[in-house]
C-alpha cells in the first residue's frame, strides 16, 4: 500500500526554489531514509508531509502531493498532523512534567477519560523505550531528563496521538552513540505499526535502519532505491560520491 505520492512536486520559499520536480512514493510500514547534504531540500520535503511548511513566510507549492490518495491540501490540517506525527532534530519537551508532555496531545485531541489517558501514556512510553527509566518519576519536569531521554519522550508524545506516519527530522543529530542506538532500536520496532520517514545527516544511520533510501541534492531527488542497492551499487555517480564522503 502506498501512503504518500508526490508527483512533480515543486516548492518555493519566496524566490528560493527548495524542491524541483520531485516524484516519490512512500509505502506503508517501511522506513524511508532521506539523505543528502544541507540545503538539499530533504527537510523541506519532510515538512511537506505534515504541511508544516505552511507556517513559513512566502511558501508556495506546485504539483501534486497525496496522502492515502487524497490531495494533501484538501485534508483538514489538524487531522492531517494528528495522523502524521513528527519528531524534531532538537528534543523539544514542553515546559511540563513527563506525564503531561505525553498526555498533552492526547488531551488536546479531546480525550478526557483519565484511565484512557494513563494507558496511552504508559503504552507510548513503552513503545519509545523510555518507560522503565521514568515510570517512578512521571511527575518530574521533562527538562530533568537527559538529551537522549528527552528525544525518546518526544517520540512517545508523538506516538500518544496514535498517528499512522512518523516523520523524523535528524532525530539523533544532538545525541551520543548510545542514545542514538536506542532511538534507532525504537524506530525499527515501530516499523511494524507505522510508516516512518527519516531525514538524516548520518549516512550510516540510513544504512542501518532504512528499507529504502532516497538521495536528495540541491532540491532534486537524485536516486531512490532499496537501501542495499544505494549503498552497494548506486545508479548515479553523485550518490556514490556522497555516501563515500567525497562531498557533503
Amino acid at each position, binding site marked *: 500500500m502506498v501512503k504518500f505520492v508526490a508527483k512533480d512536486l515543486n516548492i518555493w520559499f519566496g524566490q528560493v526554489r527548495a524542491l524541483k520536480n520531485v516524484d516519490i512514493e512512500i509505502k506503508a510500514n517501511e522506513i524511508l531514509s532521506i539523505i543528502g547534504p544541507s540545503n538539499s531540500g530533504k527537510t523541506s520535503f519532510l515538512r511537506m508531509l505534515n504541511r508544516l511548511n505552511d507556517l513559513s513566510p512566502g511558501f508556495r507549492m506546485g504539483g501534486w502531493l497525496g496522502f492515502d490518495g487524497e490531495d494533501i491540501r484538501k485534508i483538514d490540517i489538524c487531522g*492531517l*498532523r*494528528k495522523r502524521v*506525527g513528527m519528531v*524534531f532534530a*532538537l528534543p523539544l519537551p514542553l515546559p511540563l512534567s513527563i506525564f503531561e508532555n505525553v498526555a498533552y*496531545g492526547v488531551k488536546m485531541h479531546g480525550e478526557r477519560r483519565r484511565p484512557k489517558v494513563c494507558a496511552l501514556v504508559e503504552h507510548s512510553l513503552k513503545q519509545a523505550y523510555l518507560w522503565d527509566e521514568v515510570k517512578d518519576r512521571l511527575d518530574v519536569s521533562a527538562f530533568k531528563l537527559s538529551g537522549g531521554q528527552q528525544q525518546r519522550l518526544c517520540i512517545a508524545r508523538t506516538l500518544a496521538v496514535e498517528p499512522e506516519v512518523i516523520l523524523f527530522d535528524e532525530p539523533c543529530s544532538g545525541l551520543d552513540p548510545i542514545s542514538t542506538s536506542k532511538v534507532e532500536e525504537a524506530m525499527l520496532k515501530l516499523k511494524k505499526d507505522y510508516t516512518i520517514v527519516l531525514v538524516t545527516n548520518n549516512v550510516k544511520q540510513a544504512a542501518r535502519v532504512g528499507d529504502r533510501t532516497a538521495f536528495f541534492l540541491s532540491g532534486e531527488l537524485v536516486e531512490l532505491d532499496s537501501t542495499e542497492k544505494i549503498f552497494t551499487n548506486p545508479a548515479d555517480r553523485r550518490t556514490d560520491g556522497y555516501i563515500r564522503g567525497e562531498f557533503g
Partner: protein
Amino acid sequence: MRKLKEFIIDKLIFICGLASIFFVILIFLFLSKEALAVFKYVSPVDFLAGKRWYPISEPAQLGILPLIFGSLMVTLGAAIISIPIGIACAVYISEVAPSGIKEFLKAGIELLAAIPSVVLGFIGMVTLVPWVKRIFGLPTGLTALSGSIILAFMAMPTIVSIAEDALYSVPKNYKEGAFALGATHWQTIYRVLLPAASSGIVAAVMLGIGRVIGETMAVMMITGNAAVIPHSILVPVRTLTATIAAEMGEAVVGSEHYFALFAIGIVLFIISFIINVSADLFLHKRS
C-alpha cells in the same frame, strides 16, 4: 598613558553606577526623616487604619485608610480592565495579525504610551465622566470607575509591549512542536505559548499596575477626591497620590499635616517597591 585613561573611564562608570543607588538611598532617607515625625502625633496603627482623613481640623485626624482603599480600588478596577484586554492585544499582535496591521498596531500602542497623563485626564473629564454619570444615573461622574477606565488606558501600553516581547521570545520550536501534534492555532496559543511566556506576562502585568498605582494627575482630575471609604466603584474616591499632589501646596511646613503627606509618600514608595521587586523576580525566573 592608555592605562591611566582606562583607569579614569573605569572609575567614572563606577561612580555613575553608584549614583543611581546613592540617590535612591538619599530620597528614602529624606522621606523617612520627614515622615517618621508624624508618629509623634499619631500612632502607626491609627495612621494606617484610621478611617478619617481631616488633616486641618483641630485636632487633626490623620487616618489614611480611605486613601489606601481609594488607591486599591482604582488600581484593581484598572487591572481588571487592562489585563485581559492587554494580554489579548499582545497575543493578537504577536500571533494573529498580518505584518502590516502588526506594525500599525505597535505604533498605535506606542502613541498611547506617549500621551501625557494630564491630557488623558482632561479627555476623561470631558468625555468619560459625563458618560458614566448618564449611564449609571449618578449625581456625579467623578467616580472610581472613571479613574479605573482612564488608568487602564495608561497601563495597557506597558502590558501589551512587554507581554508581546515575552510571547515573541518563546522559542519557535515550541510552536512547531504543538502544531506538529495537530494542535489548532488557538490550542497552541492557549496551551503552549501563554504558559511558556507566563513569567514575562506576569512581569508585564506587574509593571503595568506599578504605573497605575503611582499615577497622579489623571486620577486627581477624574476620581472626585472624596476621602471616604468607598462602598462601591460608582462613588468618588481619593487616592494616595492625589492627596499628596493636592495638599502639599497648602500644608504648613513642619505641621503634622506636612509630615503625614511624607508618610503617605513612604507608603506609596513601599507599595511600588514591592510591585517592582515581584515583577523583577518573575522576569528573572524566565531567564
